[in-house]
């Protein structure tokens, strides 16, 4: 019994060591972000401006929020494909709570976020208890969520026109006298909470531990099954938050949207240095990864690069980022 306890501590320590090593990757990702931004600043007269920078941050909010939640799941050695359409479902639920039922904002918004947690909880149950591989379990949830979003909305967008203050969650300016959208504050707040939970709490420690060596973690007496469910459910809250943020930005819940967001979010996580094989990664890295994608999208469009080429470039960046990660792993 004591021996297994030790191995748990070891695996937890391995987790902490990887956090330290992740620093370098973060630094390099950050350097890439700076280099790319510097290039666009030189290449286009319209890139380097306050308005454009807030536009880039603003466009990062939804993918960034999804990516933060997914970082937990991926570090724990899982994957979540249901975040994109799950987000659409949570947006629709937000519409159901606020528009159809008429709940006040202070109840409806948390309810929509908790609904995301429920999606995650079901994913976690399917993965941890029913032992369905995460790829399949969440692929199934992706379809369920897509269908439910259409069913619950009668396949039509739900507009928040009569819900006072809803769009302010995203497009309002809380900071007095500054044009800085609230959505970006929400993203930064969510990232801060996630980073603290990942690095300073039991939830974070077990996330790393399960991802680096699930068996050892289980042998050390940790209830892996329960913690996995908790990790998926916690990550689900970010699906809910993303659903609120996208519907607040659009002023409507678009039931048919969301497909493809999961891949962009996963790309952001991977570019940010989180390993798809689990056990390592960070929230800061993910945030930088999401920013790299937004900066590339924004910069390439501002430079009037033909759209066909924009995806080619984005794809190459992802390849290089993953390859870099592999080199790094070989060396450590």
């Amino acid at each position, binding site marked *: 019994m004591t021996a297994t306890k030790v191995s748990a501590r070891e695996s937890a320590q391995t987790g902490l060591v990887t956090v330290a090593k992740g620093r370098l990757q973060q630094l390099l990702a950050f350097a890439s972000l700076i280099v790319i931004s510097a290039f666009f600043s030189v290449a286009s007269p319209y890139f380097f401006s306050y308005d454009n920078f807030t536009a880039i941050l603003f466009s990062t909010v*939804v993918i960034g929020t999804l990516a933060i939640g997914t970082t937990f799941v991926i570090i724990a050695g899982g994957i979540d494909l249901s975040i994109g359409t799950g987000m659409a479902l949570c947006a629709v639920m937000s519409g159901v709570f606020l528009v159809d039922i008429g709940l006040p904002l202070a109840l409806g918004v948390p309810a929509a976020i908790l609904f995301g947690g429920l999606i995650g909880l079901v994913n976690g149950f399917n993965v941890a208890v029913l032992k369905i591989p995460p790829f399949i379990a969440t692929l199934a949830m992706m379809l369920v969520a897509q269908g439910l979003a259409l069913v619950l909305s009668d396949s039509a967008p739900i507009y928040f026109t009569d819900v006072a203050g809803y769009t302010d969650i995203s497009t309002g300016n809380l900071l007095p006298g500054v044009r800085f959208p609230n959505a970006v504050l929400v993203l930064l707040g969510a990232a801060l909470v996630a980073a603290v939970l990942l690095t300073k709490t039991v939830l974070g420690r077990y996330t790393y531990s399960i991802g680096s060596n699930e068996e050892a973690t289980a042998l050390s007496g940790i209830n892996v099954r329960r913690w996995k469910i908790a990790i998926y459910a916690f990550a689900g809250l970010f699906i809910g938050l993303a659903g609120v943020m996208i519907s607040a930005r659009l*002023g409507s819940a678009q039931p048919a949207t969301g497909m493809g967001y999961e891949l962009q979010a996963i790309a952001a996580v991977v570019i940010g240095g989180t390993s798809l094989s689990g056990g390592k990664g960070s929230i800061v890295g993910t945030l930088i990864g999401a920013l790299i994608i937004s900066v590339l999208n924004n910069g390439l469009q501002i*430079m009037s690069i033909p759209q066909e080429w924009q995806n080619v470039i984005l794809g*190459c960046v992802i390849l290089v*980022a993953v390859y870099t990660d592999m080199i790094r792993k070989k*060396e450590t």
Partner: protein
Amino acid sequence: MLARKITAALASAVVALSLAACGSAGDGAGGGGEPYVAIVSKGFQHQFWQAVKKGAEQEASKRGARVTFVGPATEQEVEEQLNMLTNALAKQPDALGFAALDSKAAAPLLQQAQSQDVPVIAFDSGVDSGIPVTTVATDNKAAAAEAAKHLAEELGGKGKVALVVHDQTSLSGVDRRDGFVEWMEQNAPGITVLPAQYGGGDQLESANITKSIISANPDLDGIYASNEGSAIGVIKGVQESGASGVTVVGFDSGQAQIDAIRNGQMLGAVTQNPIGMGERLVDAALKAIEGQRLPETVDTGFYWYDKSNIDDEKIQAVLYQ
């Protein structure tokens, strides 16, 4: 070793930049005095949008203007379209062409365009707002009614028909469904119209839907498909099910539909005029830049085409391969 790591990590940036550089070589980065029209479309890779793009570029080069054309990968990506609109406005265009996926979502950005004194020209589907100076579009309901009329004539005013529609949420999907159904209800009492089925404009999906409609209704006489992808799917579905005596009418063009009409698998189709839409969009934008007054709507028209007139010059000019 550290050097190697840094090299590897920065390689991502280098790849992006070199590709960006060769990409930009192809595109007219030439600023100068020529008017610049930024176009944000509802789609991009679909043949229809490529035809609009072609029309816009033709008109621009004829008139000495510069255009850029972007659009999201699918017509569900409302948020992506807003990002594209934001980026287009950041380039301070002289005019903006915009086909809204969701008018209300785009309202704040359109206000921004107005405050930047950028005239907005709506195209394809209307933008539900007072800001656009004009709307350049096809009357989808009338076009769908035209398809219904030809199908009813072919069937002699009686029988059972089905609809495979590309989308139940977008305005074009709804109009093309309702235009067809309403015409049938009012003018062809002898024709039973089955409830519409939706294939997302996806060929495979639409083919599968078609096959299940046919097996559920062995006495089916006709099928109407509401866009290019749906039409190709319906043709495939009819072919695979081996059913005979099912008359297919479609929408838009594209090589597969043109071939099907020529070899008799399809009766005919209604085509919009996407190239003309692109041309008139740029024309309206340039007029708006010069401060000319524009009519509220610019109808880009539609045509019915079948075996008998497919080679007419007028039809050939609006079909895209």
